[in-house]
């Protein structure tokens, strides 16, 4: 729910007001142009409100109402979480670029959150315990039968800053407050398992969750890699009677000429029928055939064409759910995101105007400092979780096809945390995926188990960008005013696209992110597929 215009409340303080189209029950309050977000979930009136008697209950409310069957990583993303105990209404607030601290207060309009204040020093820094006490005082003033609780809190309170390291949870109307550091609730239930026991537990967990999440006939996106094959075999072994199927993208390009042997080996292993799709027609920024509506900007917007090809083919094949191997790198301890790769010095921010580039660098430095204060493996896990969250594949037709992350659950995250802790798998090393190769060896065909590299997609990215250069330039021109207002240089973006079209081999990383944002933004305005990339 990204809001695009900064607005001010009655007294001139920064805040936001906007309503966007969201999944049932959700609505948002607009954030400023930098991308701050305030999400509010209002359950149907007849839904029985949970009693939030503890922090864990708040998490349960969030898990049930916000992201069904997805473990609650919200504490990593959101600085402030408010739950109305009587109604189950949930408010989440997060910063935009980076996970910045937020300022909040209550006034006649309700809960107001901002990422900046016009006058420095006008806020009060409150430690986590202090925030809890402050909110507790506010919450006690709320009438028990209030519906939009956030709108009726006592006015006049001053600005407070939510500490960066705290997630503040507020159960309005019941004076229940709590804070928690931004990490997964780790109960360490697998600490006493030996390595073999841990691998067994992982196999059991994957198989069990795959069956639990398979809604009838399930399609699995099979690439011939370790991750997707593991998932397919887990599903097949746990549910052999069902008629699942596979989806595979094929490419006519030189580097993909050997991939078929791995794909065929995967199909032979599970004994499924497969649907082969021509990937050369669904490259980066090609026109999609379905409409996706993720609630937040996502890099996946650059790949809507491929997502729509796979999801619509799964629906045509009679599948009710679609699995892929997304998240496996993070779950199996392979995630390469460490301090060196996450906080690369001298990154290319040439597409941004100087003020925005400076702000981005400040946030990166702030995140680096947070990272350096903690355990390197713990932070690798933290950022792996963030990357996984960002890659959640939306379903174009939620009533026909569920696209929940198949590998992701609280249990697999706890297991993966244990994998991260073990010296045996501490470093991804070469050829990589040491844990997955050991743990899932009984499931994998020999050629897939032994493959040392996965085919690279760099060629596909460059082809897609070059092929769609004209339409991308037109899209940037339509959004020029907005992009310039948030600090992105449209001229430089266009220049870089033209150089990529001529194969001058420019750095595409930030460009793809900017273009993905533009596609996402334009898709939300128009409901027709392909409109985002019209000429």
């Amino acid at each position, binding site marked *: 729910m990204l809001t695009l215009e900064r607005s001010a409340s009655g007294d001139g303080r920064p805040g936001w007001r906007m309503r966007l189209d969201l999944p049932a029950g959700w609505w948002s309050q607009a954030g400023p142009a930098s991308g701050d977000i305030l999400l509010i979930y209002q359950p149907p009136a007849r839904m029985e409100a949970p009693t939030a008697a503890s922090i864990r209950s708040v998490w349960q409310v969030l898990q049930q109402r916000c992201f069904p069957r997805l473990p609650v990583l919200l504490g990593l993303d959101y600085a402030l979480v408010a739950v109305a105990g009587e109604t189950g209404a949930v408010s989440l607030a997060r910063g935009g670029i980076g996970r910045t601290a937020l300022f909040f207060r209550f006034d006649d309009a309700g809960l107001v959150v901002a990422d900046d204040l016009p006058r420095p020093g006008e806020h009060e820094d409150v430690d986590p315990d202090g925030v809890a006490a402050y909110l507790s005082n506010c919450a006690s003033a709320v009438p028990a039968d209030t519906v939009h609780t956030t709108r009726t809190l006592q006015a006049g309170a001053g600005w407070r800053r939510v500490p960066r390291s705290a997630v503040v949870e507020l159960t309005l109307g019941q004076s229940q407050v709590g804070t928690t550091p931004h990490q997964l609730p780790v109960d360490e239930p697998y600490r006493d398992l030996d390595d073999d026991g841990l691998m067994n537990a992982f196999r059991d967990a994957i198989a069990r969750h795959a069956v639990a999440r398979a809604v009838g006939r399930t399609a699995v996106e099979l690439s011939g890699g370790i991750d997707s094959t593991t998932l397919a075999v887990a599903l097949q072994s746990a549910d052999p009677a069902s008629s699942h199927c596979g989806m595979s993208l094929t490419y006519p390009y*030189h580097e993909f000429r050997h991939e078929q042997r791995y794909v065929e080996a995967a199909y032979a292993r599970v004994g499924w029928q497969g649907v082969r799709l021509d990937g050369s027609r669904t490259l980066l920024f090609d026109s999609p055939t379905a409409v996706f509506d993720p609630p937040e900007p996502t890099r996946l917007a650059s790949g809507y064409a491929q997502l729509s090809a796979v999801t619509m083919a799964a629906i045509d094949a009679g599948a009710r759910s679609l699995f892929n191997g997304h998240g496996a790198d993070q779950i199996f301890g392979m995630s390469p995101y460490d301090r060196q790769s996450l906080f690369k010095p001298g990154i290319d921010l040439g597409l941004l105007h100087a003020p925005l580039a400076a702000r981005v660098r400040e946030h990166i430095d702030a995140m680096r400092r947070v990272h350096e204060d903690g355990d390197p493996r713990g932070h690798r896990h933290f950022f792996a979780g963030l990357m996984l969250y960002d890659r959640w594949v939306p379903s174009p037709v939620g009533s026909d096809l569920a696209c929940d992350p198949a590998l992701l659950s609280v249990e697999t995250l706890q297991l993966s945390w244990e994998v991260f802790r073990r010296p045996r798998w501490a470093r991804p090393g070469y050829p990589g995926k040491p844990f997955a190769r050991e743990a899932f060896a009984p499931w994998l065909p020999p050629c897939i188990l032994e493959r040392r590299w996965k085919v690279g997609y*760099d*060629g596909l990215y460059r*082809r897609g960008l070059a092929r769609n250069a004209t339409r991308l330039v037109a899209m940037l021109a339509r959004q020029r005013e907005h992009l310039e207002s948030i600090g992105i240089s449209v001229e430089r973006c266009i220049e870089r696209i033209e150089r990529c079209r001529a194969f001058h081999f420019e750095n595409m990383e930030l460009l793809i992110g900017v273009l993905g944002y533009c596609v996402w933004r334009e898709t939300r305005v128009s409901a027709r597929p392909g409109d985002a990339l019209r000429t």
Partner: protein
Amino acid sequence: MLTTLWRPLVDEESAMAFLVSARTGELLALPAAELRVEARAKILEQRERLRRASRVEAMDVDDWEQGYLGRDMRPGPLDRLALRLGWILALALARWARLDSAFRGLEALALRFPARRSDVAGILDAVAFAERSFHRAARTQQCLPRTMLRFFLLRRAGHDVEANIGVWVPTPMMHAWVSVHGRTLGEEREEVMHYQPCLRFVGSDAPPCREPC
């Protein structure tokens, strides 16, 4: 005898042609239509020293099976010194020398100072030792000096060998590797499979071959 083969990699989808300069080793990307204009093609050939090379339509590549990757070994003290010096010279050649001149020089030097015939695996191990002496990482980006040193030692031992410079079309990534009759030596198959050779220096005792060998 060194034979230089070259071919442009034409990507029909993007209508671009990719080739590697035999002079500088740099990747050139230009509209495929430009190659079809004879006058411009001749200028390109002359500038990139391709006139002394034979244009071919294809270069055989056999990368279906994973070949020998090498093992850790530690040669004797004199061999260690020679290998390390050889690596330093290969680095210097890769960094500063003209590509075709470098391979001509390596071929001439190998023929002038032949060695007793050694097996291919042993030579691959020796070069790996030299590389590890200077680079701790399991994998390095030093494919060109590695290829030059392998080429020299294999030719010196009397083996026919090809030094390939390939491109991952349509990206800017290039790779260098050695092969025998197109069969890749000492490389991760799933890495080298991304690259199509477009420049090949063939060291052979047979007469020059103007068709793919």
